[in-house]
Protein backbone atom coordinates (compact mmCIF):
# COMPACT_ATOMS: atom_id res chain seq x y z
CA UNK A 1 0.00 0.00 0.00
CA UNK A 2 2.70 2.49 1.05
CA UNK A 3 4.81 1.57 -1.98
CA UNK A 4 2.02 2.61 -4.33
CA UNK A 5 1.32 5.90 -2.56
CA UNK A 6 2.99 8.61 -4.60
CA UNK A 7 2.02 11.55 -2.46
CA UNK A 8 5.26 13.38 -1.67
CA UNK A 9 7.46 10.97 -3.58
CA UNK A 10 10.09 11.90 -6.15
CA UNK A 11 10.46 10.00 -9.42
CA UNK A 12 13.74 10.94 -11.14
CA UNK A 13 13.39 11.62 -14.85
CA UNK A 14 14.46 13.85 -17.67
CA UNK A 15 11.32 15.55 -18.90
CA UNK A 16 10.80 19.23 -19.61
CA UNK A 17 9.09 19.52 -16.23
CA UNK A 18 11.88 17.66 -14.42
CA UNK A 19 14.43 20.05 -15.79
CA UNK A 20 12.58 23.19 -14.73
CA UNK A 21 13.99 25.41 -12.01
CA UNK A 22 12.40 24.44 -8.67
CA UNK A 23 11.67 28.12 -8.01
CA UNK A 24 9.64 28.30 -11.21
CA UNK A 25 7.77 25.14 -10.31
CA UNK A 26 6.93 26.31 -6.81
CA UNK A 27 5.74 29.70 -8.09
CA UNK A 28 3.79 27.95 -10.80
CA UNK A 29 1.95 25.75 -8.32
CA UNK A 30 1.11 28.61 -6.00
CA UNK A 31 -0.17 30.80 -8.83
CA UNK A 32 -2.08 27.87 -10.28
CA UNK A 33 -3.85 27.31 -6.95
CA UNK A 34 -5.10 30.91 -7.10
CA UNK A 35 -6.01 30.75 -10.79
CA UNK A 36 -8.16 27.66 -10.38
CA UNK A 37 -10.69 29.83 -8.59
CA UNK A 38 -11.19 32.01 -11.66
CA UNK A 39 -13.07 29.24 -13.46
CA UNK A 40 -16.78 29.25 -12.71
CA UNK A 41 -18.47 27.44 -15.57
CA UNK A 42 -18.25 24.28 -17.63
CA UNK A 43 -15.91 25.78 -20.24
CA UNK A 44 -13.60 27.13 -17.56
CA UNK A 45 -13.33 23.77 -15.80
CA UNK A 46 -12.86 21.94 -19.09
CA UNK A 47 -9.96 24.27 -19.93
CA UNK A 48 -8.40 23.71 -16.49
CA UNK A 49 -8.68 19.96 -16.88
CA UNK A 50 -7.18 20.10 -20.37
CA UNK A 51 -4.31 22.27 -19.14
CA UNK A 52 -3.59 19.92 -16.27
CA UNK A 53 -3.50 16.93 -18.59
CA UNK A 54 -1.08 18.84 -20.81
CA UNK A 55 1.24 19.38 -17.81
CA UNK A 56 1.00 15.69 -16.90
CA UNK A 57 1.84 14.81 -20.49
CA UNK A 58 4.88 17.12 -20.47
CA UNK A 59 6.15 15.60 -17.23
CA UNK A 60 6.19 12.16 -18.90
CA UNK A 61 4.57 10.65 -15.84
CA UNK A 62 2.04 8.06 -16.92
CA UNK A 63 -1.54 9.07 -16.18
CA UNK A 64 -2.32 5.54 -15.05
CA UNK A 65 0.56 5.65 -12.57
CA UNK A 66 -0.64 8.98 -11.24
CA UNK A 67 -4.25 7.84 -10.83
CA UNK A 68 -3.23 4.55 -9.29
CA UNK A 69 -0.91 6.27 -6.84
CA UNK A 70 -3.53 8.80 -5.78
CA UNK A 71 -6.26 6.27 -5.00
CA UNK A 72 -6.72 7.32 -1.37
CA UNK A 73 -7.20 10.89 -2.58
CA UNK A 74 -9.89 9.76 -5.00
CA UNK A 75 -11.97 8.37 -2.17
CA UNK A 76 -12.03 11.86 -0.75
CA UNK A 77 -12.87 13.23 -4.19
CA UNK A 78 -15.86 10.91 -4.68
CA UNK A 79 -17.02 11.73 -1.19
CA UNK A 80 -16.95 15.47 -1.96
CA UNK A 81 -18.85 14.85 -5.16
CA UNK A 82 -21.69 13.01 -3.44
CA UNK A 83 -21.81 15.51 -0.61
CA UNK A 84 -22.55 18.25 -3.11
CA UNK A 85 -24.84 16.04 -5.15
CA UNK A 86 -27.09 15.17 -2.24
CA UNK A 87 -27.08 18.31 -0.20
CA UNK A 88 -27.35 21.18 -2.68
CA UNK A 89 -30.99 22.03 -3.15
CA UNK A 90 -31.08 24.60 -5.94
CA UNK A 91 -32.18 24.60 -9.55
CA UNK A 92 -34.51 22.04 -11.17
CA UNK A 93 -35.21 18.69 -9.61
CA UNK A 94 -33.55 16.12 -11.86
CA UNK A 95 -34.18 12.87 -10.12
CA UNK A 96 -35.97 11.68 -7.05
CA UNK A 97 -35.35 8.19 -5.72
CA UNK A 98 -36.86 7.32 -2.37
CA UNK A 99 -35.57 9.96 0.07
CA UNK A 100 -32.84 11.28 -2.20
CA UNK A 101 -33.51 14.29 -4.38
CA UNK A 102 -30.94 15.32 -6.91
CA UNK A 103 -31.02 18.87 -8.17
CA UNK A 104 -29.38 20.34 -11.25
CA UNK A 105 -27.27 22.76 -9.22
CA UNK A 106 -26.08 19.88 -7.02
CA UNK A 107 -24.84 17.95 -10.00
CA UNK A 108 -23.12 21.05 -11.37
CA UNK A 109 -21.47 21.91 -8.06
CA UNK A 110 -20.45 18.29 -7.52
CA UNK A 111 -18.71 18.09 -10.85
CA UNK A 112 -17.07 21.51 -10.56
CA UNK A 113 -15.75 21.09 -7.04
CA UNK A 114 -14.36 17.62 -7.71
CA UNK A 115 -12.71 18.83 -10.93
CA UNK A 116 -11.13 21.67 -9.00
CA UNK A 117 -9.93 19.24 -6.38
CA UNK A 118 -8.59 16.89 -9.04
CA UNK A 119 -6.54 19.50 -10.91
CA UNK A 120 -5.07 20.81 -7.66
CA UNK A 121 -4.02 17.35 -6.52
CA UNK A 122 -2.57 16.55 -9.94
CA UNK A 123 -0.55 19.74 -10.23
CA UNK A 124 0.86 19.57 -6.69
CA UNK A 125 1.72 15.89 -7.17
CA UNK A 126 3.51 16.74 -10.38
CA UNK A 127 5.60 19.25 -8.42
CA UNK A 128 6.73 16.70 -5.84
CA UNK A 129 7.05 13.87 -8.36
CA UNK A 130 9.37 15.80 -10.65
CA UNK A 131 11.45 17.74 -8.11
CA UNK A 132 13.85 16.18 -5.63
CA UNK A 133 13.12 17.18 -2.03
CA UNK A 134 16.48 18.89 -1.80
CA UNK A 135 15.72 21.03 -4.86
CA UNK A 136 12.38 21.97 -3.37
CA UNK A 137 14.22 23.03 -0.23
CA UNK A 138 16.68 25.07 -2.29
CA UNK A 139 13.82 26.68 -4.18
CA UNK A 140 11.96 27.59 -1.02
CA UNK A 141 15.12 28.98 0.58
CA UNK A 142 15.79 31.32 -2.32
CA UNK A 143 12.16 32.32 -2.83
CA UNK A 144 11.84 33.18 0.85
CA UNK A 145 15.18 35.02 0.76
CA UNK A 146 13.61 38.49 0.97
CA UNK A 147 11.98 37.55 4.27
CA UNK A 148 15.41 37.40 5.91
CA UNK A 149 15.03 41.19 6.19
CA UNK A 150 12.21 40.74 8.66
CA UNK A 151 14.35 38.28 10.65
CA UNK A 152 12.68 35.12 9.37
CA UNK A 153 15.37 32.42 9.81
CA UNK A 154 15.07 31.25 6.21
CA UNK A 155 18.49 29.64 5.92
CA UNK A 156 18.09 27.78 9.20
CA UNK A 157 14.63 26.51 8.21
CA UNK A 158 15.94 25.26 4.88
CA UNK A 159 18.91 23.56 6.53
CA UNK A 160 16.60 21.92 9.07
CA UNK A 161 14.45 20.64 6.25
CA UNK A 162 17.35 19.23 4.29
CA UNK A 163 18.90 17.56 7.32
CA UNK A 164 15.55 16.01 8.26
CA UNK A 165 15.19 14.68 4.73
CA UNK A 166 18.71 13.33 4.84
CA UNK A 167 18.05 11.48 8.12
CA UNK A 168 14.72 9.90 7.21
CA UNK A 169 16.25 6.71 5.74
CA UNK A 170 18.78 6.48 8.58
CA UNK A 171 16.07 6.68 11.22
CA UNK A 172 13.88 4.25 9.28
CA UNK A 173 16.71 1.71 9.31
CA UNK A 174 17.19 2.28 12.96
CA UNK A 175 13.48 1.79 13.69
CA UNK A 176 13.68 -1.52 11.86
CA UNK A 177 16.64 -2.61 13.96
CA UNK A 178 15.04 -1.62 17.24
CA UNK A 179 11.82 -3.33 16.20
CA UNK A 180 13.69 -6.56 15.57
CA UNK A 181 15.62 -6.22 18.81
CA UNK A 182 12.39 -5.77 20.77
CA UNK A 183 10.73 -8.62 18.92
CA UNK A 184 13.65 -10.85 19.83
CA UNK A 185 12.90 -9.94 23.45
CA UNK A 186 9.31 -11.04 23.02
CA UNK A 187 7.55 -7.77 22.31
CA UNK A 188 4.59 -8.14 19.97
CA UNK A 189 3.56 -5.09 18.01
CA UNK A 190 1.68 -6.71 15.17
CA UNK A 191 -1.23 -8.21 17.09
CA UNK A 192 -3.45 -7.93 20.14
CA UNK A 193 -5.98 -5.29 21.10
CA UNK A 194 -5.32 -1.66 20.20
CA UNK A 195 -4.33 -0.71 23.74
CA UNK A 196 -1.67 -3.42 23.89
CA UNK A 197 -0.28 -2.41 20.54
CA UNK A 198 0.03 1.22 21.54
CA UNK A 199 1.81 0.12 24.70
CA UNK A 200 4.22 -1.97 22.64
CA UNK A 201 5.21 1.10 20.63
CA UNK A 202 6.63 2.92 23.66
CA UNK A 203 9.72 0.68 24.00
CA UNK A 204 10.26 1.31 20.31
CA UNK A 205 10.07 5.09 20.51
CA UNK A 206 12.26 5.63 23.55
CA UNK A 207 15.44 4.07 22.15
CA UNK A 208 14.73 5.82 18.86
CA UNK A 209 14.55 9.18 20.60
CA UNK A 210 17.68 8.56 22.62
CA UNK A 211 19.64 7.67 19.52
CA UNK A 212 18.22 10.60 17.56
CA UNK A 213 19.49 12.97 20.23
CA UNK A 214 22.89 11.32 20.19
CA UNK A 215 22.99 11.68 16.42
CA UNK A 216 21.95 15.32 16.63
CA UNK A 217 24.77 16.01 19.06
CA UNK A 218 27.35 14.28 16.86
CA UNK A 219 26.07 16.05 13.79
CA UNK A 220 26.27 19.45 15.49
CA UNK A 221 29.90 18.76 16.41
CA UNK A 222 30.72 17.58 12.88
CA UNK A 223 29.12 20.73 11.46
CA UNK A 224 30.97 23.02 13.81
CA UNK A 225 34.29 21.35 13.03
CA UNK A 226 33.66 21.96 9.34
CA UNK A 227 33.26 25.63 9.99
CA UNK A 228 29.49 26.01 10.17
CA UNK A 229 28.49 29.23 11.93
CA UNK A 230 25.10 30.14 10.52
CA UNK A 231 24.02 31.46 7.15
CA UNK A 232 26.14 34.62 7.21
CA UNK A 233 28.88 34.70 4.58
CA UNK A 234 28.05 31.26 3.24
CA UNK A 235 28.19 30.41 -0.43
CA UNK A 236 26.05 27.79 -2.16
CA UNK A 237 27.29 24.67 -3.88
CA UNK A 238 23.98 23.87 -5.52
CA UNK A 239 23.20 26.52 -8.08
CA UNK A 240 19.78 27.01 -9.55
CA UNK A 241 19.57 28.40 -13.04
CA UNK A 242 16.51 30.05 -14.35
CA UNK A 243 16.10 29.42 -18.07
CA UNK A 244 13.80 30.62 -20.80
CA UNK A 245 11.57 27.58 -20.31
CA UNK A 246 10.96 28.70 -16.73
CA UNK A 247 9.89 32.18 -17.76
CA UNK A 248 7.74 30.65 -20.50
CA UNK A 249 5.95 28.40 -18.03
CA UNK A 250 4.86 31.45 -16.07
CA UNK A 251 3.84 33.25 -19.29
CA UNK A 252 1.77 30.20 -20.16
CA UNK A 253 0.08 30.48 -16.80
CA UNK A 254 -0.71 34.15 -17.49
CA UNK A 255 -2.23 33.07 -20.82
CA UNK A 256 -4.36 30.51 -19.02
CA UNK A 257 -5.60 33.17 -16.61
CA UNK A 258 -6.56 35.44 -19.49
CA UNK A 259 -8.50 32.68 -21.23
CA UNK A 260 -10.29 31.65 -18.05
CA UNK A 261 -11.16 35.26 -17.38
CA UNK A 262 -12.57 35.62 -20.89
CA UNK A 263 -14.92 32.63 -20.49
CA UNK A 264 -15.90 33.51 -16.95
CA UNK A 265 -19.61 34.22 -16.49
Amino acid sequence: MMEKMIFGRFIPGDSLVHRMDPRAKILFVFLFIAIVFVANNAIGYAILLGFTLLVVFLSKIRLYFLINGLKPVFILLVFTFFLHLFFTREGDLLLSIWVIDIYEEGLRQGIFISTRFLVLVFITSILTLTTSPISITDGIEILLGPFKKIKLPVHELALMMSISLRFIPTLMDETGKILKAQMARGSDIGSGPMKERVKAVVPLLIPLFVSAFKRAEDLATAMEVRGYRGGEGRTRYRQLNWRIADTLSLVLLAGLTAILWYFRT
Partner: protein
Amino acid sequence: MNSGILSFENVTFTYNAEDEKVRPAVANVSFSIQQGEWIALVGHNGSGKSTIAKLMNGLLFPGEGNVKVMGQAMTEETLWEIRSQMGMVFQNPDNQFVGATVQDDVAFALENNGVPHEIMVERVHEALSQVKMEDYKDHEPHHLSGGQKQRVAIAGALAMRPKLLILDEATSMLDPQGRTEVIETIRRLRESTGLTVISITHDLEEAALAERIIVMNQGRKHVEGSPTDVFKRGNELTEMGLDLPFAMRMTHLLQEAGVNLQEEHMTDDELVDELWKFYSKA
Protein backbone atom coordinates in the same frame (compact mmCIF):
# COMPACT_ATOMS: atom_id res chain seq x y z
CA MET B 1 61.83 24.48 21.22
CA ASN B 2 60.22 24.10 17.83
CA SER B 3 56.52 23.92 18.51
CA GLY B 4 55.73 22.35 15.12
CA ILE B 5 52.32 22.30 13.51
CA LEU B 6 50.50 21.56 16.73
CA SER B 7 51.57 21.59 20.33
CA PHE B 8 50.12 21.05 23.78
CA GLU B 9 51.89 22.68 26.71
CA ASN B 10 50.89 21.35 30.12
CA VAL B 11 47.26 21.13 29.12
CA THR B 12 44.72 20.22 31.77
CA PHE B 13 41.01 19.95 31.20
CA THR B 14 38.16 18.98 33.53
CA TYR B 15 34.58 18.56 32.32
CA ASN B 16 32.91 19.71 35.51
CA ALA B 17 35.51 22.09 36.84
CA GLU B 18 33.30 23.19 39.79
CA ASP B 19 32.92 19.67 41.11
CA GLU B 20 36.06 18.91 43.15
CA LYS B 21 35.56 15.13 43.02
CA VAL B 22 35.83 14.87 39.24
CA ARG B 23 39.31 14.00 38.06
CA PRO B 24 40.53 15.89 35.02
CA ALA B 25 39.82 14.16 31.68
CA VAL B 26 43.18 15.42 30.48
CA ALA B 27 45.92 16.15 33.02
CA ASN B 28 49.11 18.07 32.37
CA VAL B 29 49.63 16.75 28.86
CA SER B 30 52.43 18.10 26.64
CA PHE B 31 53.55 17.04 23.20
CA SER B 32 54.31 18.59 19.85
CA ILE B 33 53.69 17.37 16.37
CA GLN B 34 55.78 18.28 13.34
CA GLN B 35 54.52 18.97 9.85
CA GLY B 36 54.09 15.75 7.86
CA GLU B 37 54.13 13.34 10.78
CA TRP B 38 51.72 10.48 11.31
CA ILE B 39 50.88 10.25 14.99
CA ALA B 40 48.75 7.64 16.68
CA LEU B 41 47.04 8.48 19.94
CA VAL B 42 46.07 5.33 21.83
CA GLY B 43 44.59 4.58 25.22
CA HIS B 44 41.86 2.70 27.02
CA ASN B 45 38.21 3.84 27.07
CA GLY B 46 37.86 7.13 28.87
CA SER B 47 41.59 7.85 28.86
CA GLY B 48 40.97 11.31 27.38
CA LYS B 49 41.70 10.78 23.69
CA SER B 50 38.51 12.38 22.34
CA THR B 51 38.91 15.20 24.82
CA ILE B 52 42.38 15.86 23.38
CA ALA B 53 40.93 15.86 19.88
CA LYS B 54 38.32 18.41 20.96
CA LEU B 55 40.99 20.57 22.56
CA MET B 56 42.96 20.45 19.31
CA ASN B 57 40.33 22.24 17.30
CA GLY B 58 38.75 24.45 19.86
CA LEU B 59 35.58 22.51 20.58
CA LEU B 60 36.93 22.72 24.12
CA PHE B 61 39.40 25.16 25.65
CA PRO B 62 41.99 24.01 28.18
CA GLY B 63 41.48 24.86 31.84
CA GLU B 64 45.23 25.24 32.21
CA GLY B 65 48.08 25.27 29.72
CA ASN B 66 48.18 26.21 26.05
CA VAL B 67 47.21 24.72 22.74
CA LYS B 68 49.08 26.13 19.75
CA VAL B 69 48.28 25.37 16.15
CA MET B 70 50.64 26.51 13.40
CA GLY B 71 52.28 28.91 15.78
CA GLN B 72 48.98 30.54 16.74
CA ALA B 73 47.47 30.20 20.17
CA MET B 74 43.93 28.82 20.09
CA THR B 75 41.60 31.67 21.05
CA GLU B 76 38.07 32.76 20.16
CA GLU B 77 39.54 34.98 17.43
CA THR B 78 41.81 32.46 15.75
CA LEU B 79 39.37 29.58 16.15
CA TRP B 80 37.68 29.62 12.73
CA GLU B 81 40.90 30.29 10.88
CA ILE B 82 42.48 27.31 12.63
CA ARG B 83 39.49 25.06 12.02
CA SER B 84 39.62 25.73 8.31
CA GLN B 85 43.18 24.35 8.34
CA MET B 86 42.23 21.23 10.22
CA GLY B 87 40.05 18.37 9.02
CA MET B 88 38.39 16.05 11.47
CA VAL B 89 36.66 12.72 11.00
CA PHE B 90 34.62 11.02 13.70
CA GLN B 91 33.62 7.53 14.63
CA ASN B 92 30.05 7.16 13.42
CA PRO B 93 29.85 7.35 9.61
CA ASP B 94 26.15 8.27 9.65
CA ASN B 95 26.28 11.07 12.16
CA GLN B 96 28.70 13.28 10.27
CA PHE B 97 27.07 13.20 6.86
CA VAL B 98 25.42 16.62 6.48
CA GLY B 99 24.66 16.89 2.76
CA ALA B 100 21.90 15.21 0.79
CA THR B 101 24.38 13.59 -1.59
CA VAL B 102 28.10 12.80 -1.55
CA GLN B 103 29.11 15.95 -3.40
CA ASP B 104 26.93 18.19 -1.25
CA ASP B 105 28.51 16.75 1.83
CA VAL B 106 32.03 17.30 0.55
CA ALA B 107 31.12 20.89 -0.31
CA PHE B 108 29.78 21.65 3.17
CA ALA B 109 33.00 23.02 4.66
CA LEU B 110 33.64 25.03 1.49
CA GLU B 111 30.17 26.58 1.66
CA ASN B 112 30.71 27.48 5.30
CA ASN B 113 33.96 29.22 4.46
CA GLY B 114 32.40 31.26 1.67
CA VAL B 115 34.44 29.72 -1.15
CA PRO B 116 33.19 30.91 -4.58
CA HIS B 117 31.21 28.43 -6.64
CA GLU B 118 33.73 27.71 -9.43
CA ILE B 119 36.50 26.95 -6.95
CA MET B 120 34.10 24.79 -4.95
CA VAL B 121 33.37 22.61 -7.95
CA GLU B 122 37.11 22.05 -8.50
CA ARG B 123 37.82 21.32 -4.87
CA VAL B 124 34.94 18.87 -4.52
CA HIS B 125 36.21 17.00 -7.53
CA GLU B 126 39.78 17.04 -6.25
CA ALA B 127 38.80 15.82 -2.78
CA LEU B 128 36.60 13.05 -4.13
CA SER B 129 39.33 11.81 -6.44
CA GLN B 130 41.80 11.76 -3.53
CA VAL B 131 39.58 9.22 -1.76
CA LYS B 132 38.56 7.49 -5.00
CA MET B 133 34.87 8.29 -4.66
CA GLU B 134 34.27 10.37 -7.82
CA ASP B 135 31.94 7.77 -9.25
CA TYR B 136 29.63 8.12 -6.30
CA LYS B 137 29.23 11.87 -6.31
CA ASP B 138 25.46 11.82 -6.77
CA HIS B 139 24.84 9.00 -4.32
CA GLU B 140 22.80 9.45 -1.20
CA PRO B 141 24.40 8.41 2.09
CA HIS B 142 22.09 5.47 2.75
CA HIS B 143 23.26 3.84 -0.45
CA LEU B 144 26.90 3.75 0.68
CA SER B 145 28.79 1.27 2.84
CA GLY B 146 30.34 2.38 6.12
CA GLY B 147 33.82 2.49 4.60
CA GLN B 148 32.59 4.56 1.68
CA LYS B 149 30.86 6.99 4.03
CA GLN B 150 34.07 7.40 6.01
CA ARG B 151 35.98 8.07 2.79
CA VAL B 152 33.42 10.74 1.93
CA ALA B 153 33.91 12.18 5.41
CA ILE B 154 37.66 12.28 4.73
CA ALA B 155 37.00 14.01 1.41
CA GLY B 156 34.80 16.50 3.25
CA ALA B 157 37.65 17.17 5.64
CA LEU B 158 40.17 17.48 2.79
CA ALA B 159 38.10 19.88 0.69
CA MET B 160 39.52 22.89 2.52
CA ARG B 161 43.06 21.55 1.83
CA PRO B 162 43.91 21.32 5.52
CA LYS B 163 47.43 20.91 6.86
CA LEU B 164 46.26 18.51 9.50
CA LEU B 165 43.81 15.61 9.56
CA ILE B 166 42.49 14.22 12.84
CA LEU B 167 40.72 10.87 12.84
CA ASP B 168 38.88 10.10 16.07
CA GLU B 169 38.34 6.33 15.94
CA ALA B 170 37.31 6.73 12.33
CA THR B 171 37.69 3.02 11.63
CA SER B 172 36.26 1.54 14.81
CA MET B 173 32.70 1.11 13.52
CA LEU B 174 33.74 -0.40 10.19
CA ASP B 175 34.00 -3.98 9.02
CA PRO B 176 37.50 -5.27 8.16
CA GLN B 177 37.11 -4.31 4.51
CA GLY B 178 35.93 -0.79 5.31
CA ARG B 179 38.80 -0.43 7.75
CA THR B 180 41.35 -1.47 5.13
CA GLU B 181 39.80 0.95 2.62
CA VAL B 182 40.10 3.86 5.04
CA ILE B 183 43.62 3.02 6.18
CA GLU B 184 44.76 2.61 2.56
CA THR B 185 43.22 5.98 1.72
CA ILE B 186 45.15 7.67 4.49
CA ARG B 187 48.39 5.97 3.56
CA ARG B 188 47.98 7.09 -0.05
CA LEU B 189 47.10 10.63 0.95
CA ARG B 190 50.21 10.91 3.04
CA GLU B 191 52.36 9.75 0.19
CA SER B 192 50.87 12.16 -2.30
CA THR B 193 50.36 15.26 -0.16
CA GLY B 194 52.52 14.89 2.93
CA LEU B 195 49.50 15.56 5.11
CA THR B 196 50.00 15.53 8.87
CA VAL B 197 47.75 12.84 10.37
CA ILE B 198 46.72 12.27 13.95
CA SER B 199 44.80 9.04 14.31
CA ILE B 200 43.10 8.19 17.53
CA THR B 201 42.55 4.50 17.86
CA HIS B 202 42.09 1.48 20.07
CA ASP B 203 43.59 -0.72 17.50
CA LEU B 204 47.32 -1.11 17.96
CA GLU B 205 47.72 -2.69 14.53
CA GLU B 206 46.50 0.58 13.09
CA ALA B 207 48.74 2.49 15.48
CA ALA B 208 51.72 0.43 14.31
CA LEU B 209 51.45 2.20 10.95
CA ALA B 210 52.17 5.57 12.52
CA GLU B 211 55.61 7.10 12.96
CA ARG B 212 55.07 7.94 16.57
CA ILE B 213 52.66 6.72 19.20
CA ILE B 214 51.38 8.64 22.19
CA VAL B 215 49.86 6.39 24.84
CA MET B 216 47.28 7.89 27.17
CA ASN B 217 46.40 6.43 30.54
CA GLN B 218 43.75 7.97 32.81
CA GLY B 219 44.08 11.42 31.33
CA ARG B 220 47.88 11.47 31.47
CA LYS B 221 50.44 10.90 28.80
CA HIS B 222 51.92 7.53 29.66
CA VAL B 223 54.65 7.13 27.05
CA GLU B 224 55.52 8.53 23.69
CA GLY B 225 57.77 6.98 21.07
CA SER B 226 58.18 4.99 17.91
CA PRO B 227 55.91 1.94 17.55
CA THR B 228 58.82 -0.41 18.17
CA ASP B 229 59.79 1.36 21.40
CA VAL B 230 56.25 1.59 22.63
CA PHE B 231 55.39 -2.02 21.90
CA LYS B 232 58.48 -3.20 23.79
CA ARG B 233 56.52 -2.36 26.90
CA GLY B 234 54.28 -5.34 26.15
CA ASN B 235 52.58 -6.25 29.43
CA GLU B 236 52.47 -2.71 30.68
CA LEU B 237 50.22 -1.88 27.72
CA THR B 238 48.05 -4.95 28.18
CA GLU B 239 47.51 -4.01 31.83
CA MET B 240 46.26 -0.61 30.67
CA GLY B 241 43.57 -2.31 28.64
CA LEU B 242 45.18 -2.17 25.23
CA ASP B 243 45.35 -5.05 22.79
CA LEU B 244 48.76 -5.69 21.32
CA PRO B 245 48.91 -6.40 17.60
CA PHE B 246 48.29 -10.01 16.73
CA ALA B 247 51.86 -10.65 15.55
CA MET B 248 53.25 -9.43 18.87
CA ARG B 249 50.93 -11.50 20.98
CA MET B 250 51.81 -14.48 18.86
CA THR B 251 55.53 -13.84 19.26
CA HIS B 252 55.17 -13.62 23.04
CA LEU B 253 53.13 -16.79 23.21
CA LEU B 254 55.65 -18.64 21.06
CA GLN B 255 58.51 -17.38 23.22
CA GLU B 256 56.70 -18.51 26.35
CA ALA B 257 56.20 -21.91 24.76
CA GLY B 258 59.96 -22.14 24.34
CA VAL B 259 60.26 -21.25 20.66
CA ASN B 260 63.44 -19.25 20.41
CA LEU B 261 62.39 -16.22 18.37
CA GLN B 262 64.92 -13.40 18.18
CA GLU B 263 62.92 -10.25 17.63
CA GLU B 264 59.69 -8.42 18.39
CA HIS B 265 57.34 -8.35 15.42
CA MET B 266 54.72 -5.77 14.71
CA THR B 267 53.32 -7.07 11.47
CA ASP B 268 52.20 -10.51 10.47
CA ASP B 269 54.64 -10.54 7.54
CA GLU B 270 57.70 -9.97 9.71
CA LEU B 271 56.67 -12.76 12.04
CA VAL B 272 56.02 -15.12 9.17
CA ASP B 273 59.44 -14.29 7.72
CA GLU B 274 61.24 -15.13 10.93
CA LEU B 275 59.22 -18.29 11.37
CA TRP B 276 60.32 -19.37 7.90
CA LYS B 277 63.96 -18.72 8.76
CA PHE B 278 63.52 -20.53 12.03
CA TYR B 279 61.95 -23.45 10.25
CA SER B 280 64.71 -23.70 7.64
CA LYS B 281 67.41 -23.58 10.36
CA ALA B 282 65.77 -26.29 12.39
